[in-house]
């Protein structure tokens, strides 16, 4: 088993590298390490090909990799915490929380919040608040389906609030927000990469402390507690880490659906384990590959027509969800 899992991991790593090489070359496979290297370290503002790598391709590839990883890991955490294969940051309304806060800043135009740090912070706070709401309800509802329905209600509630905001905002703000809602890997600039990477790494660091309790949590909350885990602080840490990933990514890429829900299920199918160290690594790899692939589809089809990212993720994700429902409910 261990052997075959390693084979899966290495195959995924090779696939990921291949997808990165295609994606960073604008959709065509190629080895351009020299260009990539010099566009980062020996940047020459007069060389157009270097500008293309530095300003367009590298940020887009970077964002696709890390958004895929972050959303999938967040989905995995939610699925284990709520013991629910259909949980995920978008289904439970956590990205809605981030969206709402971003909508408020976009449509009211408070200037602090339109700065990079400001928008990340406000999105994190939004995600955190909505995660806590879901956590609160999870203590009262016993059924898995009920919690999902509550998550969807949070989503509806948010869209209603956003519509109320839209009535009193200007056309351009509505348009900007609508387009943001489609999801995109293109809105990140090269100089924003360190901030995103930093926050992401903070999330990964916190993950280290979650692996042991997550592994226990698969047999239930009470047994976990009786094996010596402080459930209250553990639950809070999961919520914080999920909010970091979901909020960060929503702030920069829009509310991306289905990745967080579908990827962890695919990973469990591939890895056949409950060891969360492996599940996290698997989710990161499969998540990055999936989102890179979705974005590549957009790149390839672009000359004919423009696909919104959320349409692509839904096309791939929705069948996976139906399959899970058929299998597990």
């Amino acid at each position, binding site marked *: 088993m261990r052997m075959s899992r390693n084979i899966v991991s290495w195959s995924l790593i090779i696939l990921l590298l291949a997808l990165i090489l295609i994606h960073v070359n604008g959709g065509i496979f190629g080895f351009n390490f020299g260009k990539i290297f010099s566009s980062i370290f020996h940047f020459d503002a007069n060389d157009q090909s270097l500008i293309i790598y530095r300003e367009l391709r590298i940020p887009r590839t970077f964002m696709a990799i890390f958004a895929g990883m972050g959303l999938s890991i967040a989905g995995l955490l939610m699925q284990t915490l709520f013991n629910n294969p259909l949980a995920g940051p978008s289904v439970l309304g956590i990205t809605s929380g981030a969206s709402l806060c971003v909508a408020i800043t976009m449509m009211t135009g408070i200037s602090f919040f339109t700065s990079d740090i400001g928008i990340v912070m406000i999105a994190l706070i939004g995600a955190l608040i909505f995660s806590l709401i879901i956590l609160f309800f999870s203590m009262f509802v016993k059924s898995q389906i009920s919690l999902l329905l509550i998550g969807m209600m949070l989503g509806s509630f948010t869209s209603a609030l956003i519509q109320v905001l839209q009535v009193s905002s200007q056309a351009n703000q509505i348009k900007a927000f609508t387009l943001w809602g489609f999801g995109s890997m293109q809105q990140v600039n090269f100089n924003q990469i360190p901030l995103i990477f930093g926050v992401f790494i903070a999330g990964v660091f916190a993950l280290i402390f979650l692996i*042991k309790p997550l592994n226990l949590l698969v*047999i239930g909350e*009470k047994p976990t507690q009786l094996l010596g885990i402080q459930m209250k602080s553990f639950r809070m840490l999961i919520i914080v880490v999920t909010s970091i990933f979901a909020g960060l990514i929503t702030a920069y890429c829009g509310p991306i659906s289905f990745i967080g829900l579908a990827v962890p299920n695919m990973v469990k199918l591939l890895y056949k384990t409950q060891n969360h160290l492996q599940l996290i690594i698997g989710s990161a790899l499969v998540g990055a590959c999936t989102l890179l692939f979705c974005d590549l589809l957009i790149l390839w089809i672009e000359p004919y027509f423009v696909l919104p990212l959320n349409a692509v993720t839904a096309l791939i994700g929705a069948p996976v969800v139906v399959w899970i429902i058929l299998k597990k409910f």
Partner: protein
Amino acid sequence: MIELKNIEIGYHSALLSIENLVLETGKFYAIIGKNGIGKTTFIHTVLGLIPTIKGEIDINGQNIHQISANQRAKLVAHVPSKFEGVQHLSTRDFIAMGRAPYTNFLGKLAEEDWKLVDEISAELGIESFLHKDTSELSDGERQIASIAKALVQKTPVIVLDEPTAFLDYANRMSVQKLLQKVAKNANVCIIQSSHDLELCLEFADEMLIVEPNKKTIIPINRANCSKEKVIEIAF
């Protein structure tokens, strides 16, 4: 050794009050009483999940409500009435979870931990399904795996909440026999709640009968106990 010192238990108002009760290691206790009388509340209190209203519960001299969850997990282990099994979780990995209180924050098991898991599995005679997925085990096998997990936890006290409720007669017998053996061989204090009066009378060392009028627990040694007497006191 577990000592209940003048306690009152319950969620808001006292369900049961027990003046002084000492339960010893190496013995197998059975709690018997009417439904809704507070057996589960008693078990949850002993596990440290809910606080006592009055008094304290000490295990090996430590007040279980005043220590950390991790320390408590080294003193008392739990076997629920049913473990559903988890897909992709092997029986051996499941039993090994009992070592969690002894690992660091990463949860990595040492060589000795695995050795202990295999030893206890061998003692219980469950090597045959040790590498099976827990979702593929039979109810009886799962219950024994749960007991193995509790044993691996190496606690002086193991509490079982109706461990035979979902088993057929043959399995109920073998689980009771196993608990009787384990209490002696591993020198642990085993406390179970149960509705299986006959089986308890056959295998448990002492009955802890919940008396509904005074709302207290009356311990009676198996030697002095009969089915009629239990029924008279408890129901």
